[in-house]
Structures are given as C-alpha cells and as structure tokens.
C-alpha cells in the first residue's frame, strides 16, 4: 500500500514540495503545494489533496441529493439543494418526452415544500444543476426524520466503502438516505431515529478524528459489519 502522509492545514499553508499531482483544494506554485481550505492534507503517490472540514456544497454530476421544492412553473420545479445554486427538475424528465404543459399540473406530482431524493444529471460552471428522480429510491420522500449536517462531513458519515452507514443502520434498525448535500433522511422506529440522530451529530462533530467507526460501533453495541 503506497504511503500517504497527512497533516492539518489552514489556507495558505505549505503542504509539501515536489513532483505531485494537485487533486483537490490545493494551489500549486512552482513545485510547492499550498492548501486552499481548512482541513486534512493528504499527499502520496496519487497526488496532493486537502479534505476540507468546512465549506459549502458544490454539486457534482451523479450526486444523490435531498432537496425541497421551492417553486414551480409550467416546465420545471425549482429545488433548494442546500447549495449556492438552485437546482431544476424538468417536467419532461418526470412525465416523459411527450410532456405538454397545460395537460399536466406539476403541483399534483410535487408541491411546494415537498422533499425529494434526486440525482444531479447535469451541472457545470455555466449552468444550474439539473436533477432527475428516475431511479430506485428516488422521488418524493413521504416519511422519516430530516437531519442536516455540514456537507463536508458526508463522506465521513458514509465511511470507507459504506462502513459507517452500515454500522448505524445495523445499530439502530433505521434506514438512512444520505444526500451528498448534507441532508439526511432517517426512516424507522422512533427510538431508533433518536439514536441515529444522536450518532449522526456525533460523527459531524468528530469527523476529523481517527477511529470514529470503532467509537460508533461501541456506542451502538454493534460488532464489525461485513460488506
């Protein structure tokens, strides 16, 4: 396994020098690499990256997000996805290509205030994100408890190959839907939900610490969960 070095950095701090590839949140000047964010810098054979500890959610194509319908027109819904960009869910992506405005009322499908699980199908610097709700587990969310965490902590909540999320699901008997935008829906029995919310908040607070999965396993009384 190639050796990866880690260190805590703040913006402008020198991470390392040498012939590396800049991966994320890194500024390269000459052969020196500086951090652009507060976080944990990792550098090794693969390249240099900074895993940020704080920051906004910037959409990526294929991200699963949980959003709230905030408005609709004849052709699309506007969705708040907890980001600096408003997402659009096109009516033709929901009703099919033959959709004609006037025949269908968008509000019958999703009303203002409804929560949806969706996938980002298109996004770049020049246009707002486009969502899709076609796929298993996507669409309107009708039940469960909504928890919001910092979007930068989402990878930690999922864990390596989903180890953390499996641990929480096994320990609480709840089903978690984690949006990359930091919105989580917990479905299950009330006592399980209370436990799960507590664990999620703990993971958010201690995301930068090592051995978090073991700590959560001990807290929930769960043994190692296999993939």
């Amino acid at each position, binding site marked *: 396994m190639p050796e990866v070095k880690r260190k805590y950095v703040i*913006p*402008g701090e*020198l991470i390392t020098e040498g012939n590396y590839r800049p991966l994320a949140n890194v500024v390269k000047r000459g052969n020196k690499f*500086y951090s*652009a964010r*507060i976080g944990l810098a990792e550098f090794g054979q693969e390249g240099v990256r900074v895993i940020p500890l*704080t920051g*906004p959610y910037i959409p990526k194509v294929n991200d699963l997000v949980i959003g709230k319908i905030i408005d609709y027109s004849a052709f699309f819904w506007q969705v708040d996805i907890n980001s600096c960009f408003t997402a659009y869910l096109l009516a033709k992506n929901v009703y099919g290509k033959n959709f004609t405005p006037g025949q269908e009322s968008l509000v019958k499908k999703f009303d203002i205030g409804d929560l949806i699980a969706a996938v980002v199908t298109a996004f770049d610097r*020049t246009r707002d994100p486009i969502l899709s709700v076609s796929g298993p587990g996507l669409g309107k969310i009708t039940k469960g408890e909504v928890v919001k965490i910092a979007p*930068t902590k989402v990878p930690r909540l999922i864990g390596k190959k989903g180890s953390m999320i499996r641990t929480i699901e096994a320990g609480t008997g709840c089903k978690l839907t984690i949006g990359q935008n930091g919105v989580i829906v917990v479905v299950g029995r009330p006592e399980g939900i209370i436990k799960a919310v507590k664990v999620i908040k703990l993971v958010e607070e201690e995301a930068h610490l090592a051995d978090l999965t073991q700590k959560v396993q001990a807290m929930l009384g769960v043994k190692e969960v296999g993939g």
Partner: protein
Amino acid sequence: MGKLINDGIRVDGRRVDELRPYRLEVGVLKNADGSAYIELGKNKIIVAVYGPKELHPKHLALPDRCVLRCRYHMSPFSTDVRKPPAPSRREIEISKVIREALEPAILVEEYPRTAIDIFLEVLQSDGGSRCAGITAASLALADAGISMYDLVVACAAGKVDGTMVLDLSDIEDKEGEADMPVAVMPNLNIITLLQLDGILTHEEFKQGIDLALSGCKKLYEAQRKALIERYFKSGLNQQEEAE
C-alpha cells in the same frame, strides 16, 4: 497636548514596536456560514460571512466568478459620542478598501454566478479598526470554507512625535503625523492594502513597512492559533498521544 512618546514609551505604555493586546476567536456566530471576533486594544469587531450564495438581482452576477460584497459598520455605541447608524462616507470607503484587500486572497473563479457577503460590525472602536477588521474577516472567510490562496492579515504603522511606531491607537492616529495601514498575505508575501495618511520620507516609509510586516507576522500566528483552536484541537491532542 503633551508628548506622545517619552523615553521610547508611548502614552499607553507600549514600546514603539509593540502591538496592543489582541485576542482572536473563530466561529462565534451560529447562523452565519463563517464568523470571527477580534479584540485589538480597545477595538472589538465581529465579522460574519454568508455565502457563496445565489445573487439577487441576477443581472448583478458575474458569469465566471463570484461577487464579493463587504459592509463595514460602526455600531452607534462604538464611539464615545453616539454615532448615527446610517453608513457614513468613511464607512462606505472602508468597506471598499476592505473588499479590495480581501479579494486577491479568494479563489473567486471557484464560485461563478454567486455572491459572498462579509459583514464587519465594530462594537467598540479604537485606532486601526480597518486593519483589525481585515484580520478577522479573513478568518471568517476561512471558517466559511471558502477557498483562499492565503489568509490576509493587516496592521498599521505610523509616525508619532517624529518616530515610526507600530499599531497606532486612536489618540496616536489623531495627534500623530502619519498613519499607514498595510494588509498582507503572509505566506505569499503579497501586499493587498497600502494606504498612507500623512507624509513620510523614503527612509521612514521603508521603516514603516518593515514595522507593519513584523506586526502582521505576530497577528498571523494568532490567526493560525485561533483556527487550530477551533478545528483541530481535539485532533491534535489525539495525534500527539499517538506519537
């Protein structure tokens, strides 16, 4: 008016190259995306950062970068005589220079079509509030998780009783001969703000820059400490234990 410097000691008991006592704190406001608080002498300034967020009205948005908006405001109770809360000519100007001092540090191209709002509220004022404001604002930006080339740190130097001094207090600013605020990105060694009120010789100017940069260096250490305190404290302890 008596002398402001006697035997190398200033009216508030400092040496000529000494900063006023300072304290920095990060993440003081829950509702803001990023926030910071600074005390520098009698200055007490709180800074909140919101964003990046969608810009309304939309025609103000720039297609390739974010818009930075900055508001420096002195609260009515920040001075000894009540200050009317409406933004004055001076506050509008300081808002502009602070924005221009922070802009070079931000990777504005990472957030196209958005806006970042910075609010600086002076709760109690002393000399050098724009410098203290910049120092705290860059911490608040970092706290908001906005990508930055470097932190920005600012400090003033000036001329009082014919001597170059560091970090002027209110009385030295008013009675002294010159005041020169300097903001710098310390790791990149780039000056982002340089103002001069008064007249300095070439020699004095060089001396003033050196003084201001030395002050910035000390404040940068404090900025660093404040961020570490907020984000890594528990993690660092764990790392040390492991080592």
